[in-house]
């Protein structure tokens, strides 16, 4: 015989609702592990006030590193957007022996440590290159490293969209007289562009912060091949935490911008889903 409970208690004896417990635990974990340290960076960057912050951020070396990083990350994102779309196309639409293997290998840059990635590129494209190509200590080396580590982003973003794509549209266009290239440009590409863009944005965000794959192959030459993350590292080594923090804040803001952009793009993409 059960007893009537006072009105107002939603669930008898359940204690803390599971959703609240889960949310509370997660937020606590993220706060301690991620937010607290990031707050420390922002705080330290402002240690000498906004003027000091600006001084560190606008130093010649900092500006050079930041500018170079942005340019090369953008270039890598753009190149991998193009090649990534191509590779995704081949993986989805083409059929050949070993395709499954190739598909699995796409994730290699995700699985391989960045320092190892740098070393492998150095082995093939460095001073002891078996094919005579040596890009070590050049800006091209940084681009190469970023191409390696950002390869999977666009491919993995485009593949599912391509798989879900309604072939009917292409067949309709063909029946109306469109040639394959036209179909691709006018029918397929517009449907892929949100995925390509968000993949490229992720690639860009990753490229901007890349460290491990770049350190060995680029020589980290200031004003030439030094990327922002290496600059920050050098500032830490030279016991200049404020300078390091200041430039880090710039990088953080950039990352935040890209994350927001990706979310906005995500909403824009689903507009076409009707």
């Amino acid at each position: 015989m059960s007893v009537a409970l006072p009105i107002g208690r939603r669930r008898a004896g359940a204690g803390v609702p599971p959703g609240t417990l889960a949310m509370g635990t997660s937020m606590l974990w993220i706060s301690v592990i991620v937010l607290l340290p990031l707050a420390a960076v922002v705080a330290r960057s402002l240690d000498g006030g906004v003027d000091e912050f600006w001084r560190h951020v606008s130093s010649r070396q900092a500006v050079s590193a930041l500018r170079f990083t942005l340019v090369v990350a953008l270039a890598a994102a753009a190149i991998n957007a193009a090649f990534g779309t191509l590779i995704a196309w081949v993986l989805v639409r083409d059929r050949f022996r070993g395709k499954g293997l190739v598909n699995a290998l796409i994730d290699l840059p995700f699985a391989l440590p960045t320092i190892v990635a740098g070393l492998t590129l150095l082995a093939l494209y460095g001073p002891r290159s078996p094919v005579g190509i040596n890009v070590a200590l050049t800006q091209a080396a940084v681009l190469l490293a970023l191409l390696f580590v950002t390869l999977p982003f666009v491919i993995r973003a485009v593949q599912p969209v391509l798989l879900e794509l309604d072939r009917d549209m292409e067949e309709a266009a063909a029946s109306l007289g469109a040639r394959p290239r036209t179909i691709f440009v006018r029918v397929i590409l517009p449907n892929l562009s949100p995925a390509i863009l968000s993949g490229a944005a992720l690639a860009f965000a990753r490229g901007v912060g890349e460290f491990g794959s770049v350190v060995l192959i680029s020589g980290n030459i200031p004003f030439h091949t030094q990327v922002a993350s290496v600059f920050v590292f050098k500032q830490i080594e030279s016991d200049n935490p404020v300078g390091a923090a200041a430039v880090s804040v710039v990088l953080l803001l950039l990352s935040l911008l890209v994350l927001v952009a990706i979310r906005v793009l995500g909403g824009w993409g689903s507009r076409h889903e009707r």
Partner: protein
Amino acid sequence: MIAVEHVSKRFGDFTALDDVSLEAPDGKLTALLGPSGSGKSTLLRVIAGLEVPDSGTIVVSGSDATRLPPQKRGIGFVFQHYAAFKHMTLHENVAFGLKIRKRPKADVNAKVGELLHLVGLDGFADRYPSQLSGGQRQRMALARALAVEPSVLLLDEPFGALDANVRGDLRAWLRRLHEEVPVTTVLVTHDQEEAMELADRIVLLRDGKVAQVGAPRELYEQPADSFVMSFLGPVSKLDGRLVRPHDVALSDRPEDGWEEAMVQRVVHLGFEVRVEMVRGDGDEISAQLTRAEAEALEPEAGSIVWLRPPASGVSA
């Protein structure tokens, strides 16, 4: 017995239940019938404790269960899409409720065996739900719900996801099961045929309100309004009234007080024959005859017949 008293429930702007009150008598099968959006599933879930009403009370077996979670209401629930525990065998699925209650292993195995036999699934104990057909999965779901000896059995469109022929078989099977194990049962369905076949009592819902309550025959023969009448069976319009096509009698000879009409079309529906006619004033009406009646009458397109308007009917 289950009593629902003045229950209301809204989802945002949408009113799913509007001051609904009803009773489901002990040991009987009550059907909650209605079109989609009528609130029948919501009502069932409120009874189960899977939804909390905005106002009103639910009384289960004599005590106020409104604020009790589903675990404490002594109910068994069967979902439209089975909700089978996919990672457990049939045996483990059916045993679940008993294991939760920490029954001794021997008792659990005995009970599970008993139930699997009851639902005709002995020998399937070690199979996984993915290896079973939809009908088998639903029978398992029933066994699982019955394992904990609920005082109330709640079924949410249990045959909705099944093929038509399987549905028919399972309907008959459920009726026999209910006769063998007469647990107070509430069944939600949008299929009036199903409700008519299975229920001792039907509660017809529309837009969150009770339209009519009664035995199936009562609802069919004495509908409260045109909605009830149209929902429960075929209707024909006649002079601003709704009548049953079965009740329209036809004759090939003029009879006293009968009307003249011209046959437009004769449709053979297998066991019945529908005769579509147009009356003198241009109104269309159809009558439904048994094969025997049709054979006697031999209606043809273009021929004249006489029809007797039925006495009963509801204003349209």
